[in-house]
């Protein structure tokens, strides 16, 4: 397997981590919104910010994969 292939696997692993993290954030945000519909806007924006933070970590992984690929 070439280094590019390994880099692709690394990027995939990073995507799994981010997927789990963002999934949890999204699920909890939905729960919270269902419980308190009046807080809809605030929950949505904080969920987006948190998802962005989680995503950033995964993107670091992707970028490292780019470096190798």
């Amino acid at each position, binding site marked *: 397997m070439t280094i590019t292939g390994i880099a692709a696997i690394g990027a995939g692993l990073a995507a799994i981590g981010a997927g789990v993290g963002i999934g949890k954030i999204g699920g909890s945000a939905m729960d919270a919104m269902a419980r308190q519909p009046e807080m809809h806007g605030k929950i949505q*924006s904080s969920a*987006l910010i948190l998802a962005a933070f989680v*995503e*950033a970590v995964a*993107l670091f992984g992707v970028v490292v994969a780019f470096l190798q690929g």
Partner: protein
Amino acid sequence: MNTFRTVLFTTLFLALSFIGFATDKEPSKDDAPFDPKAMILHHVKDAHEFHLWDWKGSPVSLSLPIIVWTDNGLTSFSSSEFHHDDEGQTIVEANGGRFVKLHEKIYQLDSGATAVAYDAEHHPTNANKPLDFSITRNVFMMWVSVALLLFIFLTTARSYKNSKDGVPTGIAGFMEPLIIFVRDEIGKPMIGEHKYKRYMPYLLTIFFFIWINNIFGLIPILNGANLSGNIAFTFTLAVFTFIITTFSGNKNYWKHIFWMPGVPVPMKLFLMPIEIIGMFVKPISLMIRLFANITAGHVIILALMSLIFVFKSVAIAPVSVAFSLFITVIEIIVTAIQAYIFTILSALYFGMATEEEH
């Protein structure tokens, strides 16, 4: 109903354009095998000419000026002098230097060299890269977007000046909710009621600048003028955010970085390097996030389109068009979300920098 029709029309338009877009990508040399990676990278990266479409086997493109800083001073010539050569074959002489274009990079041949020599990894050995200030297609599209932004917002501002009671008319009625959104959903909650006013021009400019360039990147005929998916662009904007954050940091902010209050001394010593790293990680993550999101969107759309040529079959086209249409619609949402996230995180960092002790 109206919205639905608009969405339908837009998506149909995009789908049609993408079909045209994809056929453009057919390799001109019919014997060479199709390399999706090279095609995708070519479209994601910057270029020195604005390739529009191929006409009877030869590319139709807009030539953009090449400006390089050499030992002889500023040198400029048109990219058309390379005659669409990207392999370092055509040598252009200008201002006493000899230049070649190799993979969209301008190299200046060392004196005495008549052709590019390569090492084992296909790097030129007898040429060096001068400082390149060329008006590339990204710079060109950036200026187009700036012109559009100036037109939109100066018209908006004029409409306020002309209306007697400050009621927005025309385009201002469309832009005002967006401006108020940036003010009330990004500026006020993240920075605080008292200080947000100073940062509003920056936040508004960055929001609309990123958004419009994200959208421009999705317009197919412009052929991947992938400005906001270019790391140089996101790097520059992140540097601006970093500079503003650092210069507006108050005593409380620096105290939280160098000597975290409220924790024991060993913890303070432990937290200091983490906080200092965090100071730089914040803008770096801004840079990476925007770059990777937009680039990934382009790569996915182009990869789905490449499937047609990889399988060499028309039968795969409906699937691939449908999928890339789906991704494109998602990307349209992502354009706005990424602009929003870049802006809100910048605002969050400004808010952290200016937060008072409590």
